[in-house]
């Protein structure tokens, strides 16, 4: 029988070819990687502890040898606090993004699999979440429950789940309709196998793009809450916290407020740029 293989198909084509990255995106990636390194190696990098006070050097300006970024009103080293703040903020943002992605995808799959009432319930909850400003809901929860770190991560973890749920549900429904998922079901596969081994890997790229869009929003949300004094509580420090504290000294020592503000802005910008680029590359259908 004649070999009907297509000409030119060799195993070599399977290697991943790195796409050309625009310079802006490359810088953004470097920034994010740098932030991650800082967050992970915080203890090793920070010159001082977060609460260590150097009362003789209060409100010293940046640029001196002992404190590269100056000190705050209690003599605490701004650079060290900044480093640890990056860690906390990233921790919350990653945790929250992961939680909302998992919860959202799971609910989306449940809605797609069981259809009927379950689907309606999930869609209704998704509508509800999308229509209320999250900040208000978050503030209400914080008012009732207080602001411990696990609660904060859990609360932020409810941000954006509806986006994943809609995507997961939509793609799962179309996969099970006429496609490979129904073929595998027909082979005798249990639903867990179908979802985990077939549907999830196929929708992973779309979900990842959504995650890069949600991540900066979580950072903004958390820093807003911390700025208001309702997010991360002392002695822990977060970027929003620092801005909040630095506000009183905006005239005398603006660097206390400006450095964390700059980090927030640049990180949000970097992740957004990466997310936009990824979306153009992987899934132009996401608006």
């Amino acid at each position: 029988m004649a070999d009907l293989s297509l000409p030119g198909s060799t195993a070599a084509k399977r290697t991943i070819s790195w796409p050309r990255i625009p310079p802006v995106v490359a810088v953004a990636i470097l920034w994010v990687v740098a932030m991650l390194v800082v967050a992970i190696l915080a203890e090793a990098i920070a010159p001082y502890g977060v609460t260590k006070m150097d009362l003789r050097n209060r409100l010293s300006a940046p640029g001196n040898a002992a404190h590269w970024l100056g000190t705050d009103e209690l003599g605490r080293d701004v650079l060290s606090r900044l480093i640890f703040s990056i860690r906390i903020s990233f921790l919350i943002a990653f945790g929250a993004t992961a939680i909302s992605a998992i919860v959202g995808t799971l609910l989306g799959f449940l809605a797609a699999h069981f259809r009927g009432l379950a689907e309606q319930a999930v869609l209704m909850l998704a509508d509800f979440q999308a229509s209320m400003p999250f900040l208000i809901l978050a503030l209400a929860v914080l008012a009732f429950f207080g602001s411990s770190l696990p609660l904060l991560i859990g609360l932020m973890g409810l941000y954006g789940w509806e986006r994943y749920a809609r995507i997961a549900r939509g793609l799962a429904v179309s996969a099970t309709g006429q496609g490979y998922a129904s073929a595998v079901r027909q082979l005798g596969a249990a639903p867990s196998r179908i979802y985990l081994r077939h549907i999830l890997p196929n929708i992973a790229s779309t979900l990842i793009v959504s995650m890069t869009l949600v991540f900066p929003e979580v950072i903004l949300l958390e820093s807003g809450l911390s700025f208001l004094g309702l997010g991360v509580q002392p002695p822990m420090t977060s970027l929003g916290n620092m801005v909040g504290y630095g506000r009183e000294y905006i005239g005398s020592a603006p660097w206390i407020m400006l450095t964390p503000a700059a980090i927030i802005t640049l990180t949000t910008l970097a992740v957004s740029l990466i997310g936009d680029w990824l979306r153009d590359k992987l899934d132009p259908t996401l608006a």
Partner: protein
Amino acid sequence: MARYFAIRIGRAMITIALVVTFAFVVLRLSGDPALIIMGPEAPPEVIAAFRKAWGLDDPIWMQYFDYFGAIAKGELGRSMRDGRPAIALVLERIPATLTLTIPALLLKLAIGIPGGIFAALHRGSLIDRAVMIGAVAGFTVPSFVLGLVLVLIFAVQLGWLPSGGQETWRHAILPVFTLGIGGAAVLARFTRSAMLEVLGQSYIRTASAKGVSWRAVVLSHALPNAAIPTVTIIGFMVGTLIAGAVVVESVFSWPGVGRLLVVAVANRDLAVVQCILLLVAATMVTSNLIVDFLYGFLDPRLRSREAAGAH
């Protein structure tokens, strides 16, 4: 058409019901509501009376219905700080908030929409790039950072404008500007992509190939079609007229609803929090409904689809 509206109204009511349920659940989960709302120092008779009045000894589902009833009657508890009804506190702050959010909304519309349209029409030009950069900046710079930077520049360094409080009209300039710029950026980006999508459609090319002047094409074909998705996002902004200034009011110590909310959360003044939550929900739902109604009239596809009986 009637079915379209019936569905929308049904959804709106479900959203309100969900918000009330949310408040109820959170309230119950966080401890004894009587203690929480009345405060730990309230005398035992007051607590007992509260429990009786709110039926806290009844089965939970009955409490749920009673809660609904109370909300409907407007009994939303009293503020712990000064004992006044929560509703009164909130209502008296609304004008202050609106003083900021309404001008800010106008600013957003005035800058965002023309900016977005212009950028779409002159795609790739310097203006387009400027608008896009501005839009990205507006999105990534958090409102409190923007506000504080503006304070730093205009109040501290230049001394032109005051940095906080509500005494004169000049106190409103920076907060309005802060609110407006951020929203303008979002609106510009959105309008631009809506316009671009519409401009890429084949009926636009057909119209201009027929010899219709570009200006007429834009005015009578592109804009009306791009208006439809834009209306949604404007609707969302209108819905946040009360809730959208939480952070900015705190930055500028502006005594509006947002500031009240933050203080109430910090003090765990739950009656006030609950009241604001419900008020915001009502506002959002109403504005979404209005947007839906407008859609029903604006988008002819919805009108004829309903007539054809499809869903």
